[in-house]
């Protein structure tokens, strides 16, 4: 199952988008990876977790291990060990430059002390606090003015520190190239399904908001999972946020059931429809522009002139709207003040609705 976002109405600027253009497309890999990004690297108090040494984020670490080429571990005050997670092999180095065995001719170095002091900069114990908590702790005299102002400045600017694992002085981090293919996506979801009650089959649609798709996702936090997380030093409120991705949630009477409301208002101004699955190469083709070949010149260095923003379009008022139930009609879709989400109603066969423009 996959999705298309279809343009409703022509762009005002000539030569841009036309009514019915297939503007953006989302296959299963892209959609599941989008959910996985948010589930495995969630927010706490609005900030991405990470940079809190000594705090366990097992799912986040697995998620990074699945994707990144390198793992770095600090092995002394000034040195790191780099492990190639894709093909194996380890090297240890420090501030003295060495040749990179994976890229002959390239010099690498790492001053571990400076690098990790920068990574752990400031006041890591404040990470994860929100503004109100910072202010209250300052008023109570539990943190200093410097600490308060540091964190507020950091809070206003950064998304959150890159995840750091391990202990102070023996830090671990992951980085470099990332695998984002379908096979890796499924492995990430294997981990999610092992560690949480979430299931990939429930995450095959792009997350739309309550205004667009008032779907509720019920999450059951099993008692043994809560116990395990508590043993790892993770508080239960945090555990709930961890599994719910810090979205709005409610606890059940026993405190062990969470209902998360998937957020977003991304449906507006477009008609999102569900279609049969396509691979990544097809995805690029589906949102390709209509072009013609021209002589290579300064204006057209690739010898290609774009005529229309999109090559493929859909007669949505005819072939799509006509097959819908009473939940939405053409006027509803065209009304920009209304939120319409018809994705759950029908899966369209692309070959029956996809039209291609010609030069």
């Amino acid at each position: 199952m996959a999705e298309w976002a279809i343009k409703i109405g022509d762009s005002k600027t000539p030569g841009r988008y036309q009514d019915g253009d297939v503007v953006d497309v989302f296959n299963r890999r892209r959609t599941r990876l989008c959910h996985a990004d948010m589930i495995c690297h969630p927010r706490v108090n609005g900030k991405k977790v990470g940079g809190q040494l000594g705090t366990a984020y097992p799912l986040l670490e697995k998620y990074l291990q699945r994707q990144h080429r390198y793992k770095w571990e600090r092995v002394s005050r000034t040195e790191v060990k780099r492990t190639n997670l894709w093909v194996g092999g380890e090297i240890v180095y420090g501030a003295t430059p060495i040749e990179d065995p994976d890229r002959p001719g390239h010099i690498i170095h790492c001053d571990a002390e400076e690098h990790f002091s920068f990574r752990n900069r400031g006041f890591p114990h404040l990470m994860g606090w929100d503004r109100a908590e910072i202010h209250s702790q300052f008023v109570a005299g539990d943190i200093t003015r410097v600490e308060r102002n540091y964190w507020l400045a950091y809070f206003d600017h950064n998304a959150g520190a890159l995840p750091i694992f391990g202990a102070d002085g023996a830090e671990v981090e992951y980085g470099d190239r990332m695998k984002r293919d379908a096979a890796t996506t499924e492995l990430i979801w294997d981990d999610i399904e092992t560690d949480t009650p979430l299931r990939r089959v429930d995450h095959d649609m792009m997350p739309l908001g309550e205004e667009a798709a008032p779907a509720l996702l019920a999450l059951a936090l099993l008692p043994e999972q809560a116990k395990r997380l508590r043993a790892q030093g993770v508080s239960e409120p945090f555990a709930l946020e961890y599994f719910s991705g810090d979205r709005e949630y409610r606890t059940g009477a026993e405190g062990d059931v969470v209902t998360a409301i998937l957020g977003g208002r991304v449906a507006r101004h477009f008609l999102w429809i569900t279609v049969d699955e396509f691979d990544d190469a097809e995805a690029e083709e589906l949102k390709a522009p209509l072009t013609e070949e021209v002589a290579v010149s300064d204006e057209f260095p690739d010898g290609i002139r774009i005529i229309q923003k999109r090559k493929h379009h859909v007669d949505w008022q005819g072939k799509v709207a006509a097959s819908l139930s009473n939940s939405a009609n053409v006027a509803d879709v065209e009304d920009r003040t209304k939120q319409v989400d018809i994705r759950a109603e029908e899966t369209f066969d692309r070959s029956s609705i996809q039209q291609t423009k010609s030069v």
Partner: protein
Amino acid sequence: MAVVNTTIGTDARDYATHTLWESDDGGGDGLGNDDCTGSAYNDSAFDEAWTIDFDANSIVQTVAGGERHDGTAGSGARILATTSRTILISGANDITVTWLEIDENSTTNMNSDGAVGLNNEGDVTASHLIIHDTSGSGTKDGILLDGMASGDTVAIINNLIYDIAKSTGTGSAWVGGISEDIASLTDKTVYINNNTIHNTTNSGVGTGPCEGVHVTTGASELNIKNNIVTDTNGDTSGAIDDFDIAIADDVTNVSNNLSSDTTAPGANSLTAKSSANQFVSTSPVNLHLKSGADTFEAGTDLGTTPTGVNLDIDGFDRNAGATTWSMGAHDGDNLRGAAANNPWYHYAQQA
């Protein structure tokens, strides 16, 4: 005229992708009346290319406060490519692209516009971007300036660009960190200030050039100050230079640059300096300045022109303290005295 602020992301935002935002005229009327700002959120990684060419009075493509990178990859809102991605700025009005990370993720099929292509009829600012990791054959550019209209100003400031590489393929393909490819810059103003460019590579035994910063067209006002370019390399038979600058028309605005070869142009520039003495780490890549960096407090004060030049890659205001500017995208404030390990020292001093 209206101010239209919209959000981009996958967790309770206005648009799921930049592509959708751009195709909806940034939420504006598409008639040139609005000031449109689209702010990305670090909900999930973006994986898309888009061309900004809708009609607005002004356009800002940015990352929301609290969602920005910290000067290293993977720490804020980003494009994480599964096939090469380009942000092409090709409109008719003033456009700014700022604070995004563009991780080409060693994809191989970059087009001739580079990771960020500037081909606009209006003023353009490309700032506080992290652009990195191209691979494969063919032309590669981090930021490519290949179109300006008379009277326009382009500001390429406070960017981190590294590992822009052609790894295979003979032939004359060009590789550049920041490249200019315009027939004439007369009546135009160009600022290339406080950028850090590392490890631009042209391999594959080809014949094309490999340059960290390339500007060879004389301009009425060409500003190239406080840039760090190191370890430009490869096996091409073409020129391999950290800087390839023609400054015959205006030499007064070129100064305080650093190179690891001998090409850093202008007064007060430093040459033959090792990257290992400037950056904290190159694996993992952390191009913040290290203790004892030659570039630390070796720059020149640029005040607040062009807008945003005073904010370093961490968002630190170089004018906040009575300190001398450093070269490059990072000012190194964490290296100053009692504020060691705390790049937010000057913020923290606020009452």
